[in-house]
């Protein structure tokens, strides 16, 4: 069992409230996965900025003394990046955010070269990804979710089954620019699909089954699939139980396995699309009494774009 809560805001006047709304949703799915959690927020001022690539790195020390980390990391990266890259480093909760005005591939390369202990958990121009082990609401509080603005937010509370309880094994899995995937369920043939993807040259960070789903979607998108097509193809290749939510810079998608073992409920209004594992996570959203509320049908891919 895991919990999912996701929110796409259609009305920009709600952007300042994104974090507080997502926090109220997250609070209601804690029971479904109290061991670890993760967050992805899109277009959050202070965390990402237009024209700049941002990498989210797991943990707050990156293998160096904590007080010196921001200057230390910035100095190391400035040494290998162009002089006008404008490197910025900040620690948010248990996450280190690194920004620079270069492509994400170049920034990842620079981080890999200079910070061998770092694990990249998020990348792109629009998204910041934060994850950790512990009580989901404490993780949200440490990262200051309540005060975050943004256009989309995704949260996941994990009850680990397929692999260990670690920050790296928490969701979301963000393996391509601005792409995030969270999963309630388990893939039964992930080892097979992992081997197939490895043969295609895909590199994995963890032993987690959900990472296979994320890498598969990223691979399909890279080959030209739309988000909807990628998830239809995922249904043909990956076997198991799943409710998935996938977000990109401007889209959100929900799909359940054809047997619909795992729950999902969606609320849609003119102001937002919200998805959660259980209705109680949606109950506090503004205008919920007039929302269109429905359960996504088994095996059907739903997508919404900003």
């Amino acid at each position, binding site marked *: 069992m895991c919990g999912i809560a996701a929110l796409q805001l259609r009305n920009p006047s709600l952007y300042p409230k994104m974090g507080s709304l997502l926090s109220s949703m997250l609070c*209601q799915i804690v029971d479904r996965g109290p061991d670890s959690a993760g967050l992805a927020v899109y277009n959050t001022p202070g965390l990402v900025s237009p024209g700049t690539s941002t990498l989210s790195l797991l943990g707050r020390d990156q293998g160096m003394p904590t007080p010196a980390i921001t200057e230390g990391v910035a100095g190391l990266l400035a040494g290998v990046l162009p002089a006008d890259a404008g490197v910025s480093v900040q620690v948010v909760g248990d996450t280190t955010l690194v920004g620079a005005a270069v492509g994400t591939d170049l920034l990842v390369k620079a981080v890999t070269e200079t910070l061998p202990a770092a694990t990249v958990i998020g990348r792109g121009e629009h998204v910041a990804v934060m994850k950790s082990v512990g009580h989901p609401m404490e993780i949200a509080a440490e990262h200051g979710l309540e005060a975050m603005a943004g256009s989309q937010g995704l949260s996941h509370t994990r009850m680990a089954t397929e692999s260990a309880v670690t920050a790296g094994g928490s969701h979301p899995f963000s393996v391509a620019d601005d792409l995030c995937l969270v999963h309630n369920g388990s893939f039964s043939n992930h080892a097979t699909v992992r081997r197939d993807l490895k043969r295609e040259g895909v590199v994995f960070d963890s032993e987690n089954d959900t990472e296979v789903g994320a890498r598969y979607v990223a691979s399909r998108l890279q080959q030209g699939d739309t988000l909807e097509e990628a998830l239809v193809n995922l249904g043909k290749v990956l076997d198991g139980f799943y409710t998935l939510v996938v977000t990109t810079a401007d889209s959100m998608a929900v799909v359940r396995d054809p*047997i*619909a073992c795992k*729950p999902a*409920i969606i609320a849609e209004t003119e102001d937002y699309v919200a998805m959660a594992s*259980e*209705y*109680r*996570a*949606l*109950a*506090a959203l503004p205008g919920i009494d007039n929302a269109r*509320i*429905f*359960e996504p049908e*088994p095996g059907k891919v739903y997508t919404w774009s900003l």
Partner: protein
Amino acid sequence: MVTLTAPETTAPEPVTDAPAVVDLADAPVRGLNQALHDAVDGQSWTVTNPGGKHSLAVGINADVVVTIEGHAGYYAAGMHQKGTVTVNGNAGVGLAENIMSGRVRVTGDASQSAAATGHGGLVVIDGNAGARCGISMKGVDIVVGGNIGHMSAFMAQAGRLVVCGDAGDALGDSIYEARIYVKGTVASLGADCIEKPLREEHLAELAELLAAAGRTDNPADFKRYGSARNLYHFHVDNSTAY
């Protein structure tokens, strides 16, 4: 208004006072359920701000009337024994699970496994029901105003399931007995579930069930499905199939 104590419980005749109101924005679910377990016949309750909370009004064993104003979470009115529970909204997974008798109604949609393993009573869902509606039903009557999801009435043993909309895949898979009536289309029938003739006695019981659910559908518009009874006994011809 928050009332957690049961209304007057010494009155010998049915209580006619206004319903006790429990506002779940402030009061805990456990308190509500304890008060309902302590209730006596004739009392009525209104539950406000349910907020999708789980296990509302479960295990009621007195002839009480409970109205939930809003959406209920998982297992609402589970193990229902007596009385009437109405959810003016949607209900989550496992509505009226293992209902024994009495009546449960949802004015919106119900999620998966509504009335699962129900032994008796009546469950009315005015909207749609999700997958596995009436799974392993053992005598309960279910009337769904809209559609039902896949694997509904799986291993159904007794009771009646009435669907005024469409049914999803594998309806009545591995059904023992129970009678299923569907007005709309059936995506597919499960193993050993077949269409059967709609005779006079079936039209009569269907009319009764529809009336009990407050519906005006014409019984003649429905088709009946039930067990082909081919899975009751082991066939030696199938010995190599396992």
